[in-house]
């Protein structure tokens, strides 16, 4: 299908051009349509049961006993939000500091060495993070702070580490994209390096940094394997950082293998709730970054 350039073949070239454009359009739309199919499927499978039992009992009910037809997702909703918030509390300060050090306070050689390593971190499968969590972190928490060790805290730490590469690499890119004249101007005005970072670079790179946090948050909300391994998966609203917790994703993966009938539908409904939460989080985050971009 490669267009062949022949002198005087204008019509043919034009036709080839149109063909290629059409082919690319089809490919592009097939990617979008996969998303559409997934959405339609999950919503189609998951929503009927939500309305059969009432949206309120589904979202606000705190008892998850599928064998007794009790499908309260509240503990898992709280669980997902708690673990994600915990991951951000740990991952954002660490990730941003690392990004600042890499762009502003280190030589090109150090940066060239560390950045690929950080990006490599993103390629480690989540089951490996989970395994490390179970072997090292969980016993540490159990012996130091008490409780079963499998906890909100363990999940937050593991997820916090897992979102680091996302936050670091995107923040570094956006800090590096700030025009050199900003930096030079600030230094020329007598600002220190840190003042430059705080008052010039950060505001200028804000949208990229927020984007990095959104993407990190998305990974934390969606992570399943590592969470199942270290969170303990109790279907109850956690009373403390040391209590076990079940997230929406864990709920689906944990029970999927044996679920039949309404239990299975309820797991699809869990997927619908997850879908909505992710969309709401993304919308809020996008809106804040857009608003900030408008006011200089």
């Amino acid at each position, binding site marked *: 299908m490669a267009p062949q350039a022949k002198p005087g073949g204008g019509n043919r070239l034009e036709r080839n051009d149109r063909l290629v454009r059409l082919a690319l359009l089809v490919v592009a739309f097939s990617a979008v349509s996969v998303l559409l199919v997934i959405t339609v499927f999950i919503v189609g499978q998951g929503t009927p049961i939500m309305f059969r039992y009432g949206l309120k009992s589904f979202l606000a009910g705190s008892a*998850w006993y599928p064998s007794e037809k009790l499908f309260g997702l509240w503990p898992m909703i709280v669980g997902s939000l708690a673990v994600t918030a915990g991951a951000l509390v740990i991952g954002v300060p660490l990730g941003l500091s690392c990004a600042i050090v890499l762009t502003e306070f280190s030589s090109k050689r150090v940066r060239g060495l560390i950045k690929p390593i950080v990006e490599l971190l993103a390629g480690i499968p989540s089951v490996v993070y989970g395994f490390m969590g179970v072997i090292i972190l969980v016993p540490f928490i159990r012996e130091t702070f008490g409780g079963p060790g499998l906890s909100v805290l363990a999940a937050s730490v593991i997820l916090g580490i897992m979102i680091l590469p996302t936050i670091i690499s995107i923040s570094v890119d956006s800090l590096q994209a700030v025009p050199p004249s900003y930096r030079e101007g600030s230094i020329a005005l007598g600002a220190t390096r840190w003042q430059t970072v705080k008052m010039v670079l950060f505001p200028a790179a804000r949208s990229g940094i927020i984007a990095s946090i959104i993407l990190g948050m998305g990974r934390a909300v969606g992570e399943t394997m590592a969470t199942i391994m270290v969170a303990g998966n109790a279907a*109850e609203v956690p009373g403390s950082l040391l209590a076990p917790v079940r997230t929406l994703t864990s709920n689906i993966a944990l*029970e999927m293998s044996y679920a039949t009938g309404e239990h299975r539908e309820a797991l699809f409904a869990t997927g619908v709730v997850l879908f909505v939460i992710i969309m709401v989080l993304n919308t809020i985050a996008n809106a804040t970054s857009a608003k900030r971009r408008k006011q200089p």
Partner: protein
Amino acid sequence: MTRRRCPWLLLALGVAVFSGCRIGRSQDELTLAGSTSIQPFADRWAEIFMEKRPGMGVDVQGGGSSAGIQACVSGACQIGMSSRDLKGDEKQLYEIVVARDGLAIIVHPSNPVRALAVAAVKQIFAGDLLSWGLLGGEARPITVVTREEGSGTRGAFQELVMGKTRIYSGAITQDSNGTVREIVAHDPAAIGFISLGLVNDQVRAVDLDGAAATEENIRNGSYKLVRPFLFISRGEPTGLAKEFIDFVLSAEGQALVKEEGLLPIK
């Protein structure tokens, strides 16, 4: 990974059904599906059976007891495997006990509590008994470890120990016998339940109502936590299905049961 199992099962069942159509339900294909607790044993039986009868294909699928019973009713497999008793409409199916499995209540080897009443186990899993101190152990909170909803082992525990009482929602939940054992092996305050055949020296099975979790005590009825491993079919099995079941019930088939830590039927 367990979460992958379902699509594969569906695919496999689909393939099984279609291949059945293609060769016109020939007599040399046998499909089993159901309880993942029975699956590893059924795999071994199938392996030995196929060695003895070359040319015969025996296909073993997981999916869980309920899925196995459904597959059996729909005809997607000739033999369903269930690790729980049949209930309601299911009772019309032909069932035969091929082995039995004890359920062990396990704790950390360092735990001084070596015996429990079944009533106490029930209270612990209901979340009403919270400290080992009340049971003669160190005064520390009990870490309760359970299986996920839908699991056959959980179903058996619910039926044999809990009755109508719920397992409390604050319990740590894991999706396999292996991970339950792993957690109990590393947490001195943990308690969980697994198949008796899977107890190893990393954990200790406690005595229940004065009876140690041994084969002998199960046989004489003093150890109460036992579940049947059932083979199920629509009507009396015939042909290859009958041959396979006969093999499983034979001395050779039952020797394997014993070897793998289950309890033979006789």
